[in-house]
């Protein structure tokens, strides 16, 4: 009997403490949820801004978002996101967040902005783990390397020249790193090819519903 009682007491104590802890977390969540959502939205808009070269989102960011689950024809085997920018009903640009799978230290998340005419409006690296001092120069806070793609398109240069100079193409590499810029360049090229083939569909599709 006493053993049963001690098990019951222990169980009750555990349950009580679990309830108190849950209440504590729930209260903190309630107090912070709005701020966190606002922070995330601001961060997203801020990170998209450079890739569309000064064009501002008129509607909400998430209202223009397409979510492509793998398998898709874009680079990488992660979920790809496409944000569409319109002026009225006229398509202005599409921002494609894709993953370059073949970075030096793992996948690199790249945001490629493509204007409606098919030229690059801006490229930014969203996430990477490349070597500090070498591969991390792909990051626009470290060097101007990604800016060389601005305004270029599949005709300028022709697709066979969409490679690094070291591989016989038209684009600058980085000193001390070749795998990293090659991976990024390949992702940009594949995004442009995809955009070229699917342009009308990208701007016509309705936005992907947010998960409830």
């Amino acid at each position, binding site marked *: 009997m006493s053993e049963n009682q001690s098990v019951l007491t222990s169980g009750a104590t*555990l349950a009580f403490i679990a309830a108190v*802890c849950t209440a504590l977390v729930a209260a903190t969540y309630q*107090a*912070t949820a709005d701020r966190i959502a606002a922070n995330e939205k601001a961060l997203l808009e801020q990170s998209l801004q450079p890739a569309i070269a000064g064009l501002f989102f008129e509607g909400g960011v998430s209202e223009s978002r397409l979510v492509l689950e793998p398998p898709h024809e874009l680079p990488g085997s992660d979920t790809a996101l496409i944000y569409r920018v319109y002026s009225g009903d006229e398509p202005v640009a599409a921002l494609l967040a894709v993953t370059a799978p073949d970075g030096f230290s793992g996948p690199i998340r790249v945001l490629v902005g493509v204007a409606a005419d098919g030229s690059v409006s801006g490229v930014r690296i969203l996430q990477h783990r490349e070597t500090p*001092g070498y591969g991390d120069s792909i990051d626009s806070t470290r060097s101007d390397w990604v800016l060389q793609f601005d305004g270029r398109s599949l005709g300028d240069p022709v697709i066979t020249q969409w490679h690094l100079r070291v591989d016989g193409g038209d684009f600058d590499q980085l000193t001390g790193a070749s795998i990293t810029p090659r991976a990024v360049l390949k992702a940009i090229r594949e995004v442009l090819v995809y955009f070229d083939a699917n342009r009308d569909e990208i701007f016509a599709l309705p936005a992907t519903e947010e998960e409830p």
Partner: protein
Amino acid sequence: MASSLLDRLQHGLWRDNPGLVQLLGLCPLLAVTTTFVNGLGLGVATLIVLAMSNALVSITRRWIRQEIRIPIYVLIIASLVTCIELIFKAWFPTLDRSLGIFIPLIVTNCAIVARAEVFASRNPVGASIADGVGMGAGFALLLMSIGAFRELIGQASILSRLDMITGGEPFAGLSFADRGLLLAILPPGAFFSLALAVAAKNAIDRKRTPLNRTSVWRREQLTGKDNP
């Protein structure tokens, strides 16, 4: 009473410093200390969790049975860390992104569960809080010094990204040269820095303690006379 609280603080800050002496919590210590600001962020988060978990464990110590104490420590620590993570996400979003997984991983910092088990579960609330603050501050100061050291050597700058704490425009830091010694930023640099810090502490202790006192102190350590 006040002197014993001060003594607790001094234990955490120096004599039993969780990083330098007990060598606990090395995973976050080595992983996030690439800059001073990162070290400060994780250090303060750990300090808050440690002080609060010590307080809660000490408050509840009388009616918690031995056999369920570990799950209860885990519950308390995990809830506190979740709350801290939410607060960081809400008020220091860039710092939260910079520290990434290491904020939730404070749960697994063995220094915290060690203080709950060794100290807070056997001592009154005031002493437990002092112990948590001392240990947490000791850990935070170590994170900050190693972060500052690695940033100075590796990037030849200091206080970079201070905006993650103060808000405002991105701040590149006070720079002294174009490029530092890359090794200090890479993982081996973390081990070297920690080794230097431990060696420095031992050297200072040796200088302050005359030889005969050292042997007495060693004996006390070994017989556990001074253990909490």
